[in-house]
Protein backbone atom coordinates (compact mmCIF):
# COMPACT_ATOMS: atom_id res chain seq x y z
CA UNK A 1 0.00 0.00 0.00
CA UNK A 2 2.50 2.60 -1.04
CA UNK A 3 -0.37 4.88 -2.12
CA UNK A 4 -1.50 5.19 1.47
CA UNK A 5 1.96 5.64 2.98
CA UNK A 6 3.08 8.04 0.23
CA UNK A 7 -0.06 10.11 0.77
CA UNK A 8 0.69 10.19 4.47
CA UNK A 9 4.27 11.36 3.92
CA UNK A 10 3.15 14.12 1.58
CA UNK A 11 0.30 15.07 3.93
CA UNK A 12 2.80 15.44 6.77
CA UNK A 13 5.08 17.44 4.52
CA UNK A 14 2.27 19.86 3.70
CA UNK A 15 1.35 20.22 7.36
CA UNK A 16 4.94 20.94 8.35
CA UNK A 17 5.11 23.64 5.72
CA UNK A 18 1.88 25.13 7.02
CA UNK A 19 2.94 25.08 10.66
CA UNK A 20 6.23 26.73 9.73
CA UNK A 21 4.40 29.45 7.87
CA UNK A 22 1.76 30.39 10.43
CA UNK A 23 1.40 33.73 8.69
CA UNK A 24 -0.57 31.94 5.94
CA UNK A 25 -3.16 30.71 8.41
CA UNK A 26 -3.25 34.14 9.99
CA UNK A 27 -3.96 35.79 6.63
CA UNK A 28 -6.67 33.28 5.83
CA UNK A 29 -8.29 33.76 9.21
CA UNK A 30 -7.99 37.52 9.23
CA UNK A 31 -10.99 38.14 7.01
CA UNK A 32 -13.42 35.73 8.64
CA UNK A 33 -12.45 37.04 12.04
CA UNK A 34 -13.10 40.62 10.96
CA UNK A 35 -16.49 39.48 9.71
CA UNK A 36 -17.17 37.60 12.92
CA UNK A 37 -16.19 40.41 15.27
CA UNK A 38 -17.02 43.60 13.34
CA UNK A 39 -19.45 42.73 10.56
CA UNK A 40 -21.87 40.92 12.84
CA UNK A 41 -21.79 43.88 15.23
CA UNK A 42 -22.23 46.41 12.45
CA UNK A 43 -25.31 44.60 11.19
CA UNK A 44 -26.55 43.24 14.51
CA UNK A 45 -29.94 44.87 14.10
CA UNK A 46 -30.59 42.92 10.90
CA UNK A 47 -32.57 40.55 13.05
CA UNK A 48 -35.20 43.27 13.57
CA UNK A 49 -36.01 43.34 9.87
CA UNK A 50 -39.05 41.50 8.57
CA UNK A 51 -38.16 38.20 6.95
CA UNK A 52 -35.33 37.46 9.37
CA UNK A 53 -35.74 34.19 11.26
CA UNK A 54 -37.31 35.18 14.57
CA UNK A 55 -35.61 34.92 17.93
CA UNK A 56 -31.97 34.64 16.90
CA UNK A 57 -29.06 37.07 16.82
CA UNK A 58 -27.37 38.11 13.60
CA UNK A 59 -24.16 36.42 14.78
CA UNK A 60 -26.07 33.18 15.23
CA UNK A 61 -27.33 33.57 11.66
CA UNK A 62 -24.14 34.70 9.93
CA UNK A 63 -21.67 32.32 11.59
CA UNK A 64 -22.47 29.57 9.08
CA UNK A 65 -21.81 31.97 6.22
CA UNK A 66 -18.51 33.10 7.69
CA UNK A 67 -17.39 29.49 8.17
CA UNK A 68 -18.11 28.71 4.53
CA UNK A 69 -16.54 31.95 3.35
CA UNK A 70 -13.34 30.89 5.08
CA UNK A 71 -13.49 27.42 3.57
CA UNK A 72 -14.11 28.87 0.12
CA UNK A 73 -11.34 31.43 0.12
CA UNK A 74 -8.79 29.07 1.70
CA UNK A 75 -9.63 26.37 -0.80
CA UNK A 76 -9.16 28.76 -3.68
CA UNK A 77 -5.59 29.33 -2.53
CA UNK A 78 -4.76 25.64 -2.50
CA UNK A 79 -3.38 25.78 -6.02
CA UNK A 80 -0.54 28.10 -5.05
CA UNK A 81 1.24 25.25 -3.29
CA UNK A 82 1.36 23.09 -6.39
CA UNK A 83 2.53 26.10 -8.40
CA UNK A 84 5.52 26.33 -6.04
CA UNK A 85 6.21 22.62 -6.41
CA UNK A 86 6.13 22.90 -10.18
CA UNK A 87 8.21 26.05 -10.42
CA UNK A 88 10.85 24.96 -7.90
CA UNK A 89 11.19 21.60 -9.64
CA UNK A 90 9.98 19.72 -6.58
CA UNK A 91 7.13 18.07 -8.47
CA UNK A 92 9.57 16.85 -11.08
CA UNK A 93 11.83 15.58 -8.35
CA UNK A 94 8.94 13.57 -6.91
CA UNK A 95 8.01 12.25 -10.33
CA UNK A 96 11.38 10.59 -10.86
CA UNK A 97 10.98 8.67 -7.61
CA UNK A 98 8.85 5.60 -7.14
CA UNK A 99 6.09 7.61 -5.46
CA UNK A 100 2.56 6.41 -6.18
CA UNK A 101 1.58 9.34 -8.39
CA UNK A 102 -1.98 9.83 -7.14
CA UNK A 103 -0.44 10.34 -3.68
CA UNK A 104 0.95 13.68 -4.87
CA UNK A 105 -2.62 14.93 -5.33
CA UNK A 106 -4.12 13.09 -2.39
CA UNK A 107 -1.48 14.38 0.02
CA UNK A 108 -2.20 17.88 -1.22
CA UNK A 109 -5.98 17.60 -1.01
CA UNK A 110 -6.04 15.92 2.38
CA UNK A 111 -3.82 18.59 3.87
CA UNK A 112 -6.03 21.30 2.37
CA UNK A 113 -9.09 19.69 3.91
CA UNK A 114 -7.27 19.43 7.22
CA UNK A 115 -6.28 23.07 7.07
CA UNK A 116 -9.86 24.18 6.43
CA UNK A 117 -11.01 22.04 9.35
CA UNK A 118 -8.48 23.55 11.73
CA UNK A 119 -9.39 27.07 10.65
CA UNK A 120 -13.07 26.27 11.05
CA UNK A 121 -12.50 25.03 14.60
CA UNK A 122 -10.72 28.29 15.43
CA UNK A 123 -13.61 30.29 14.01
CA UNK A 124 -16.14 28.13 15.86
CA UNK A 125 -14.35 28.66 19.17
CA UNK A 126 -14.21 32.39 18.61
CA UNK A 127 -17.87 32.46 17.59
CA UNK A 128 -18.75 30.47 20.70
CA UNK A 129 -17.02 33.08 22.85
CA UNK A 130 -19.09 35.75 21.11
CA UNK A 131 -22.33 33.89 21.83
CA UNK A 132 -22.79 31.50 18.92
CA UNK A 133 -24.37 28.15 19.88
CA UNK A 134 -24.86 24.88 18.01
CA UNK A 135 -28.16 23.20 18.85
CA UNK A 136 -27.11 19.76 17.73
CA UNK A 137 -24.11 19.56 20.06
CA UNK A 138 -20.90 17.73 19.29
CA UNK A 139 -22.33 15.35 16.66
CA UNK A 140 -23.75 18.37 14.88
CA UNK A 141 -20.43 20.18 15.04
CA UNK A 142 -18.65 17.15 13.60
CA UNK A 143 -21.17 16.95 10.78
CA UNK A 144 -20.75 20.69 10.17
CA UNK A 145 -16.99 20.29 10.01
CA UNK A 146 -17.38 17.41 7.61
CA UNK A 147 -19.56 19.48 5.28
CA UNK A 148 -17.17 22.43 5.50
CA UNK A 149 -14.09 20.30 4.82
CA UNK A 150 -15.82 18.49 1.94
CA UNK A 151 -16.85 21.86 0.54
CA UNK A 152 -13.25 23.10 0.82
CA UNK A 153 -11.95 19.94 -0.82
CA UNK A 154 -14.30 20.33 -3.76
CA UNK A 155 -13.17 23.89 -4.39
CA UNK A 156 -9.49 23.29 -3.84
CA UNK A 157 -9.76 20.99 -6.85
CA UNK A 158 -10.49 23.92 -9.12
CA UNK A 159 -7.64 25.88 -7.59
CA UNK A 160 -5.19 23.01 -8.13
CA UNK A 161 -6.30 22.69 -11.74
CA UNK A 162 -5.83 26.43 -12.22
CA UNK A 163 -2.43 26.27 -10.58
CA UNK A 164 -1.28 23.50 -12.87
CA UNK A 165 -2.73 25.26 -15.91
CA UNK A 166 -1.37 28.76 -15.27
CA UNK A 167 1.68 27.90 -13.13
CA UNK A 168 1.29 31.31 -11.56
CA UNK A 169 0.56 31.82 -7.88
CA UNK A 170 -0.59 35.39 -8.58
CA UNK A 171 -3.22 34.19 -11.01
CA UNK A 172 -4.49 31.60 -8.56
CA UNK A 173 -4.67 34.20 -5.77
CA UNK A 174 -6.27 36.71 -8.11
CA UNK A 175 -8.99 34.40 -9.37
CA UNK A 176 -9.65 33.20 -5.82
CA UNK A 177 -10.05 36.77 -4.56
CA UNK A 178 -12.13 37.69 -7.58
CA UNK A 179 -14.62 34.86 -7.03
CA UNK A 180 -14.98 34.96 -3.26
CA UNK A 181 -17.03 38.09 -2.64
CA UNK A 182 -19.46 37.99 -5.55
CA UNK A 183 -20.30 34.37 -4.77
CA UNK A 184 -20.48 35.10 -1.06
CA UNK A 185 -22.82 38.08 -1.42
CA UNK A 186 -25.05 36.34 -3.91
CA UNK A 187 -25.67 33.49 -1.50
CA UNK A 188 -27.57 32.99 1.72
CA UNK A 189 -24.30 33.25 3.66
CA UNK A 190 -24.97 36.65 5.21
CA UNK A 191 -28.67 37.46 4.63
CA UNK A 192 -31.90 35.52 4.19
CA UNK A 193 -32.88 34.99 0.60
CA UNK A 194 -35.95 37.24 1.04
CA UNK A 195 -33.64 40.23 1.57
CA UNK A 196 -32.30 39.98 -1.96
CA UNK A 197 -33.65 41.50 -5.16
CA UNK A 198 -35.33 38.85 -7.24
CA UNK A 199 -32.51 38.41 -9.79
CA UNK A 200 -30.09 37.79 -6.95
CA UNK A 201 -32.48 35.29 -5.44
CA UNK A 202 -32.28 33.39 -8.70
CA UNK A 203 -28.50 33.45 -8.64
CA UNK A 204 -28.49 32.35 -5.05
CA UNK A 205 -30.56 29.28 -5.92
CA UNK A 206 -27.75 28.09 -8.17
CA UNK A 207 -24.99 29.22 -5.88
CA UNK A 208 -23.32 26.19 -4.27
CA UNK A 209 -22.32 28.30 -1.29
CA UNK A 210 -26.01 28.70 -0.43
CA UNK A 211 -26.50 24.94 -0.17
CA UNK A 212 -23.53 24.41 2.09
CA UNK A 213 -24.46 27.43 4.21
CA UNK A 214 -28.06 26.28 4.58
CA UNK A 215 -26.94 22.87 5.79
CA UNK A 216 -24.47 24.23 8.32
CA UNK A 217 -26.97 26.83 9.50
CA UNK A 218 -29.71 24.25 9.93
CA UNK A 219 -27.38 22.15 12.05
CA UNK A 220 -26.66 25.10 14.32
CA UNK A 221 -30.19 26.58 14.49
CA UNK A 222 -32.52 23.67 14.12
CA UNK A 223 -31.60 20.04 14.50
CA UNK A 224 -30.84 16.82 12.73
CA UNK A 225 -34.46 16.46 11.68
CA UNK A 226 -33.90 19.00 8.93
CA UNK A 227 -31.64 16.51 7.15
CA UNK A 228 -32.96 17.73 3.81
CA UNK A 229 -30.57 20.64 3.74
CA UNK A 230 -27.68 18.43 4.85
CA UNK A 231 -28.30 15.78 2.23
CA UNK A 232 -28.92 18.40 -0.44
CA UNK A 233 -25.67 20.16 0.37
CA UNK A 234 -23.67 16.93 0.33
CA UNK A 235 -25.18 16.13 -3.06
CA UNK A 236 -24.32 19.55 -4.48
CA UNK A 237 -20.80 19.47 -3.06
CA UNK A 238 -20.28 15.96 -4.44
CA UNK A 239 -21.35 17.20 -7.86
CA UNK A 240 -18.86 20.09 -7.67
CA UNK A 241 -16.18 17.74 -6.43
CA UNK A 242 -16.68 15.43 -9.39
CA UNK A 243 -16.31 18.34 -11.80
CA UNK A 244 -13.32 19.99 -10.12
CA UNK A 245 -11.54 16.71 -9.47
CA UNK A 246 -11.96 15.72 -13.11
CA UNK A 247 -10.37 19.01 -14.12
CA UNK A 248 -7.59 18.48 -11.59
CA UNK A 249 -6.93 14.93 -12.73
CA UNK A 250 -6.92 16.01 -16.35
CA UNK A 251 -4.39 18.76 -15.64
CA UNK A 252 -2.34 16.48 -13.41
CA UNK A 253 -2.08 13.87 -16.15
CA UNK A 254 -0.92 16.57 -18.55
CA UNK A 255 1.68 17.85 -16.10
CA UNK A 256 2.85 14.38 -15.18
CA UNK A 257 3.13 12.79 -18.60
Amino acid at each position, binding site marked *: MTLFSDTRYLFV*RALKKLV*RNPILIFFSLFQPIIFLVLFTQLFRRFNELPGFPPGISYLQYAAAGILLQNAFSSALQAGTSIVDDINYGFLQKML*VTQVARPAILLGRLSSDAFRVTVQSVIILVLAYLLGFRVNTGLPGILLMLFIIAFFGLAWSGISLALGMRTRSAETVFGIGGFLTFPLLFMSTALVPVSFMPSWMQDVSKFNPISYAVNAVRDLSLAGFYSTNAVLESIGVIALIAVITMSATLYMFRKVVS
Partner: protein
Amino acid sequence: MTEVINVKDLTLTYADGTKAVQGISFSVNEGEFFGFLGPNGAGKSTTIKILTTLLHKTSGTASVVGLDIERQAPLIRKLIGVQSQDTSVDPELTGRENMLLEGHLQQMHGKELEERVDSLLNVVGLKEAADKRAGRYSGGMKKRLDLASVLVHKPKIMFLDEPTTGLDPQTRATVWDYLEQLNKSEGITIFLTTQYLEEADRLCQRLCIVDQGKIVAQGTPAELKSEIGADAITITMKDGQGKSDDSLKAKGRQLLQSLPNIMNVVDSGNGLTIYAKDGGYFVPDLVRAFDKSDIKLVSINLSTPSLDDVFLKHTGKRIRVEELQKQTSSMFSRGRGSR
Protein backbone atom coordinates in the same frame (compact mmCIF):
# COMPACT_ATOMS: atom_id res chain seq x y z
CA MET B 1 31.84 -3.58 -20.37
CA THR B 2 28.13 -3.45 -19.80
CA GLU B 3 26.08 -0.79 -21.47
CA VAL B 4 23.79 0.94 -18.98
CA ILE B 5 22.33 3.52 -21.32
CA ASN B 6 21.62 2.79 -24.95
CA VAL B 7 19.99 5.33 -27.23
CA LYS B 8 19.22 4.82 -30.92
CA ASP B 9 17.82 7.41 -33.32
CA LEU B 10 15.99 9.17 -30.51
CA THR B 11 13.81 12.12 -31.46
CA LEU B 12 11.47 14.40 -29.62
CA THR B 13 9.27 16.99 -31.25
CA TYR B 14 7.27 19.20 -28.92
CA ALA B 15 3.62 19.96 -29.58
CA ASP B 16 4.53 23.36 -30.99
CA GLY B 17 6.70 21.71 -33.63
CA THR B 18 10.04 22.42 -31.97
CA LYS B 19 12.40 19.59 -32.80
CA ALA B 20 14.28 19.45 -29.51
CA VAL B 21 16.04 16.15 -30.17
CA GLN B 22 16.69 15.09 -33.75
CA GLY B 23 17.85 11.51 -34.03
CA ILE B 24 20.63 11.00 -31.52
CA SER B 25 22.42 7.71 -30.84
CA PHE B 26 24.94 6.98 -28.12
CA SER B 27 25.67 4.55 -25.34
CA VAL B 28 27.10 4.80 -21.86
CA ASN B 29 29.04 2.03 -20.14
CA GLU B 30 28.69 0.98 -16.54
CA GLY B 31 30.78 3.09 -14.21
CA GLU B 32 31.47 5.71 -16.83
CA PHE B 33 31.42 9.45 -16.34
CA PHE B 34 29.62 10.56 -19.48
CA GLY B 35 28.73 14.05 -20.62
CA PHE B 36 26.60 16.06 -22.98
CA LEU B 37 28.29 19.35 -23.78
CA GLY B 38 26.39 22.02 -25.63
CA PRO B 39 24.90 25.50 -25.47
CA ASN B 40 21.45 26.40 -24.18
CA GLY B 41 18.74 24.92 -26.36
CA ALA B 42 20.90 22.09 -27.65
CA GLY B 43 18.43 19.50 -26.36
CA LYS B 44 20.43 18.43 -23.32
CA SER B 45 17.64 18.78 -20.75
CA THR B 46 15.12 17.23 -23.10
CA THR B 47 17.35 14.18 -23.52
CA ILE B 48 17.71 13.83 -19.75
CA LYS B 49 13.98 14.16 -19.30
CA ILE B 50 13.31 11.42 -21.81
CA LEU B 51 15.86 9.09 -20.23
CA THR B 52 14.52 9.75 -16.74
CA THR B 53 10.92 8.97 -17.78
CA LEU B 54 9.67 12.55 -17.47
CA LEU B 55 8.98 13.05 -21.18
CA HIS B 56 7.78 10.71 -23.89
CA LYS B 57 10.00 10.32 -26.91
CA THR B 58 8.60 10.90 -30.39
CA SER B 59 10.54 8.07 -32.03
CA GLY B 60 13.62 5.91 -31.68
CA THR B 61 14.54 3.58 -28.85
CA ALA B 62 16.22 4.07 -25.52
CA SER B 63 16.99 1.81 -22.62
CA VAL B 64 18.36 2.54 -19.18
CA VAL B 65 19.92 -0.31 -17.19
CA GLY B 66 18.57 -2.61 -19.88
CA LEU B 67 15.00 -1.43 -19.25
CA ASP B 68 12.82 0.16 -21.90
CA ILE B 69 12.12 3.79 -21.02
CA GLU B 70 8.48 3.61 -22.07
CA ARG B 71 7.31 0.21 -20.91
CA GLN B 72 9.44 -0.17 -17.80
CA ALA B 73 9.51 3.38 -16.48
CA PRO B 74 8.58 2.51 -12.87
CA LEU B 75 11.45 0.01 -12.66
CA ILE B 76 13.88 2.57 -14.05
CA ARG B 77 12.85 5.13 -11.40
CA LYS B 78 14.02 2.69 -8.74
CA LEU B 79 17.52 2.60 -10.18
CA ILE B 80 18.25 6.18 -11.12
CA GLY B 81 18.89 9.42 -9.28
CA VAL B 82 18.03 12.64 -11.05
CA GLN B 83 19.12 16.14 -10.28
CA SER B 84 17.33 18.70 -12.35
CA GLN B 85 18.65 22.02 -13.45
CA ASP B 86 16.81 23.96 -10.76
CA THR B 87 17.90 23.03 -7.30
CA SER B 88 14.78 21.44 -5.93
CA VAL B 89 14.77 21.25 -2.19
CA ASP B 90 11.80 22.13 -0.03
CA PRO B 91 12.82 25.38 1.69
CA GLU B 92 10.46 24.87 4.61
CA LEU B 93 11.79 21.44 5.50
CA THR B 94 15.15 20.92 7.16
CA GLY B 95 17.98 19.31 5.25
CA ARG B 96 17.37 16.05 7.05
CA GLU B 97 13.62 16.17 6.46
CA ASN B 98 14.18 16.78 2.77
CA MET B 99 16.32 13.67 2.61
CA LEU B 100 13.98 11.54 4.70
CA LEU B 101 11.04 12.51 2.51
CA GLU B 102 12.98 11.59 -0.61
CA GLY B 103 13.90 8.29 1.01
CA HIS B 104 10.32 7.57 2.01
CA LEU B 105 9.13 8.23 -1.52
CA GLN B 106 11.82 5.80 -2.69
CA GLN B 107 10.32 3.20 -0.36
CA MET B 108 13.06 3.25 2.22
CA HIS B 109 12.20 3.25 5.88
CA GLY B 110 13.33 2.98 9.46
CA LYS B 111 16.86 2.60 10.64
CA GLU B 112 18.28 1.79 7.23
CA LEU B 113 17.03 5.11 5.88
CA GLU B 114 18.15 7.11 8.91
CA GLU B 115 21.66 5.72 8.72
CA ARG B 116 21.87 6.32 5.00
CA VAL B 117 20.70 9.93 5.45
CA ASP B 118 23.19 10.53 8.26
CA SER B 119 26.09 9.21 6.26
CA LEU B 120 25.16 11.19 3.14
CA LEU B 121 24.74 14.40 5.13
CA ASN B 122 28.18 13.75 6.46
CA VAL B 123 29.67 13.16 3.04
CA VAL B 124 28.29 16.39 1.58
CA GLY B 125 29.33 18.34 4.66
CA LEU B 126 25.86 19.23 5.89
CA LYS B 127 25.95 17.40 9.20
CA GLU B 128 26.01 20.59 11.24
CA ALA B 129 23.24 22.24 9.23
CA ALA B 130 21.10 19.10 8.89
CA ASP B 131 18.37 20.35 11.20
CA LYS B 132 18.17 23.85 9.83
CA ARG B 133 15.57 24.69 7.23
CA ALA B 134 16.88 24.32 3.70
CA GLY B 135 15.54 27.76 2.84
CA ARG B 136 18.29 29.23 5.00
CA TYR B 137 21.06 27.36 3.21
CA SER B 138 23.43 29.07 0.80
CA GLY B 139 23.17 28.21 -2.89
CA GLY B 140 26.04 25.75 -2.66
CA MET B 141 24.57 24.03 0.38
CA LYS B 142 21.21 23.64 -1.37
CA LYS B 143 22.96 22.11 -4.34
CA ARG B 144 24.79 19.64 -2.14
CA LEU B 145 21.60 18.78 -0.29
CA ASP B 146 19.83 18.24 -3.59
CA LEU B 147 22.64 15.98 -4.75
CA ALA B 148 22.66 14.02 -1.53
CA SER B 149 18.90 13.60 -1.53
CA VAL B 150 18.79 12.00 -4.96
CA LEU B 151 21.42 9.51 -3.77
CA VAL B 152 19.44 8.25 -0.81
CA HIS B 153 18.22 5.10 -2.53
CA LYS B 154 21.68 4.18 -3.86
CA PRO B 155 20.96 4.67 -7.54
CA LYS B 156 23.03 2.86 -10.15
CA ILE B 157 22.98 5.83 -12.50
CA MET B 158 22.95 9.52 -11.70
CA PHE B 159 21.53 12.00 -14.17
CA LEU B 160 22.77 15.52 -13.54
CA ASP B 161 21.31 18.34 -15.59
CA GLU B 162 23.79 21.22 -15.52
CA PRO B 163 24.72 20.59 -11.89
CA THR B 164 26.95 23.64 -11.55
CA THR B 165 25.12 26.26 -13.59
CA GLY B 166 24.79 29.40 -11.53
CA LEU B 167 27.28 28.34 -8.88
CA ASP B 168 30.28 30.40 -7.93
CA PRO B 169 33.67 28.96 -8.95
CA GLN B 170 34.55 27.70 -5.47
CA THR B 171 31.29 25.85 -5.01
CA ARG B 172 31.60 24.49 -8.52
CA ALA B 173 34.99 23.03 -7.66
CA THR B 174 33.54 21.42 -4.53
CA VAL B 175 30.73 19.86 -6.54
CA TRP B 176 33.26 18.56 -9.08
CA ASP B 177 35.33 16.92 -6.38
CA TYR B 178 32.26 15.32 -4.93
CA LEU B 179 31.05 14.01 -8.29
CA GLU B 180 34.44 12.53 -9.09
CA GLN B 181 34.52 10.86 -5.73
CA LEU B 182 31.03 9.43 -6.28
CA ASN B 183 32.00 8.05 -9.63
CA LYS B 184 35.31 6.62 -8.51
CA SER B 185 34.67 5.28 -5.04
CA GLU B 186 31.03 4.22 -5.35
CA GLY B 187 31.20 3.22 -8.98
CA ILE B 188 28.07 5.15 -9.88
CA THR B 189 27.59 5.79 -13.57
CA ILE B 190 27.13 9.49 -14.14
CA PHE B 191 25.39 11.15 -17.06
CA LEU B 192 25.96 14.88 -16.92
CA THR B 193 24.97 17.78 -19.12
CA THR B 194 26.87 21.00 -19.10
CA GLN B 195 27.59 24.12 -21.08
CA TYR B 196 30.93 24.56 -19.38
CA LEU B 197 33.89 23.41 -21.42
CA GLU B 198 36.25 22.94 -18.54
CA GLU B 199 33.62 21.00 -16.63
CA ALA B 200 33.17 18.52 -19.46
CA ASP B 201 36.93 18.39 -20.00
CA ARG B 202 37.74 17.73 -16.39
CA LEU B 203 34.97 15.33 -15.42
CA CYS B 204 33.86 13.35 -18.42
CA GLN B 205 35.63 10.22 -19.57
CA ARG B 206 33.58 10.34 -22.73
CA LEU B 207 31.27 12.97 -24.10
CA CYS B 208 28.95 14.01 -26.85
CA ILE B 209 29.08 17.52 -28.20
CA VAL B 210 25.51 18.51 -28.99
CA ASP B 211 23.96 21.38 -30.86
CA GLN B 212 20.40 22.01 -32.02
CA GLY B 213 19.18 18.57 -31.05
CA LYS B 214 21.98 16.69 -32.77
CA ILE B 215 25.20 15.06 -31.67
CA VAL B 216 27.96 16.73 -33.67
CA ALA B 217 30.90 14.79 -32.23
CA GLN B 218 31.56 12.14 -29.63
CA GLY B 219 34.60 10.59 -28.01
CA THR B 220 36.99 11.14 -25.14
CA PRO B 221 37.99 14.77 -24.56
CA ALA B 222 41.51 13.96 -25.74
CA GLU B 223 40.27 12.30 -28.93
CA LEU B 224 38.01 15.20 -29.72
CA LYS B 225 40.68 17.77 -29.18
CA SER B 226 43.24 15.88 -31.23
CA GLU B 227 40.84 16.17 -34.18
CA ILE B 228 41.76 19.82 -34.37
CA GLY B 229 45.32 18.81 -35.15
CA ALA B 230 46.93 22.08 -34.17
CA ASP B 231 48.04 24.05 -31.14
CA ALA B 232 47.13 27.65 -30.58
CA ILE B 233 49.90 30.21 -30.13
CA THR B 234 48.74 33.65 -29.13
CA ILE B 235 51.21 36.50 -29.44
CA THR B 236 51.16 40.20 -28.63
CA MET B 237 53.65 42.57 -30.25
CA LYS B 238 54.99 46.11 -30.26
CA ASP B 239 57.13 48.07 -32.69
CA GLY B 240 60.21 50.23 -32.10
CA GLN B 241 58.11 53.12 -30.80
CA GLY B 242 56.26 50.84 -28.41
CA LYS B 243 53.02 51.09 -30.44
CA SER B 244 50.77 48.16 -31.08
CA ASP B 245 47.93 48.61 -33.55
CA ASP B 246 46.29 47.06 -36.57
CA SER B 247 49.07 47.98 -38.96
CA LEU B 248 51.43 46.15 -36.67
CA LYS B 249 49.21 43.08 -36.80
CA ALA B 250 49.29 43.26 -40.59
CA LYS B 251 53.06 43.42 -40.49
CA GLY B 252 53.10 40.51 -38.10
CA ARG B 253 50.94 38.47 -40.46
CA GLN B 254 53.35 39.17 -43.30
CA LEU B 255 56.22 38.00 -41.20
CA LEU B 256 54.37 34.81 -40.32
CA GLN B 257 53.88 33.91 -43.97
CA SER B 258 57.50 32.84 -44.16
CA LEU B 259 57.04 30.23 -41.43
CA PRO B 260 56.17 26.55 -42.00
CA ASN B 261 53.38 24.50 -40.39
CA ILE B 262 50.93 27.37 -39.88
CA MET B 263 47.35 26.28 -40.46
CA ASN B 264 45.57 29.51 -39.72
CA VAL B 265 46.12 32.97 -38.22
CA VAL B 266 43.31 34.90 -36.60
CA ASP B 267 42.99 38.25 -34.88
CA SER B 268 42.60 37.70 -31.15
CA GLY B 269 41.93 41.29 -30.14
CA ASN B 270 45.15 42.57 -28.68
CA GLY B 271 47.28 40.24 -30.73
CA LEU B 272 47.27 37.32 -33.12
CA THR B 273 46.44 33.66 -32.63
CA ILE B 274 48.33 31.23 -34.79
CA TYR B 275 47.16 27.65 -35.25
CA ALA B 276 50.12 25.46 -35.97
CA LYS B 277 51.04 21.80 -35.85
CA ASP B 278 53.41 20.82 -33.05
CA GLY B 279 53.31 24.21 -31.37
CA GLY B 280 56.28 23.44 -29.17
CA TYR B 281 58.53 23.09 -32.20
CA PHE B 282 56.97 26.08 -33.88
CA VAL B 283 57.69 28.62 -31.12
CA PRO B 284 61.50 28.79 -31.65
CA ASP B 285 60.95 29.45 -35.39
CA LEU B 286 58.50 32.15 -34.45
CA VAL B 287 60.89 33.81 -32.03
CA ARG B 288 63.73 33.70 -34.53
CA ALA B 289 61.60 35.26 -37.26
CA PHE B 290 60.56 38.14 -35.03
CA ASP B 291 64.05 38.55 -33.68
CA LYS B 292 65.27 39.42 -37.17
CA SER B 293 62.51 42.00 -37.70
CA ASP B 294 61.80 45.37 -36.07
CA ILE B 295 58.72 44.00 -34.31
CA LYS B 296 59.16 42.94 -30.72
CA LEU B 297 57.23 40.08 -29.17
CA VAL B 298 55.64 41.10 -25.86
CA SER B 299 54.12 37.76 -24.98
CA ILE B 300 53.73 34.24 -26.34
CA ASN B 301 51.05 31.91 -25.09
CA LEU B 302 51.02 28.32 -26.27
CA SER B 303 47.94 26.22 -25.62
CA THR B 304 46.49 22.94 -26.78
CA PRO B 305 43.05 23.06 -28.45
CA SER B 306 39.99 23.14 -26.22
CA LEU B 307 36.59 21.54 -26.61
CA ASP B 308 35.37 24.92 -27.74
CA ASP B 309 37.58 24.58 -30.80
CA VAL B 310 35.97 21.22 -31.43
CA PHE B 311 32.53 22.77 -31.10
CA LEU B 312 33.56 25.55 -33.47
CA LYS B 313 34.88 23.09 -35.99
CA HIS B 314 31.61 21.17 -36.13
CA THR B 315 29.08 23.95 -35.80
CA GLY B 316 30.86 27.05 -37.03
CA LYS B 317 30.18 28.86 -33.77
CA ARG B 318 31.39 28.94 -30.20
CA ILE B 319 29.57 27.81 -27.11
CA ARG B 320 28.20 30.99 -25.69
CA VAL B 321 28.64 31.16 -21.97
CA GLU B 322 29.38 34.65 -20.80
CA GLU B 323 31.93 33.85 -18.15
CA LEU B 324 33.88 31.58 -20.47
CA GLN B 325 34.37 34.05 -23.27
CA LYS B 326 37.13 35.83 -21.42
CA GLN B 327 39.20 32.71 -20.97
CA THR B 328 38.91 31.49 -24.53
CA SER B 329 38.95 34.81 -26.34
CA SER B 330 42.33 34.02 -27.81
CA MET B 331 41.06 31.05 -29.73
CA PHE B 332 38.69 31.69 -32.61
CA SER B 333 36.74 34.63 -31.34
CA ARG B 334 37.57 37.25 -33.94
CA GLY B 335 38.69 34.79 -36.55
CA ARG B 336 35.33 33.54 -37.66
CA GLY B 337 35.08 36.00 -40.51
CA SER B 338 38.53 35.33 -41.80
CA ARG B 339 38.20 31.59 -42.11
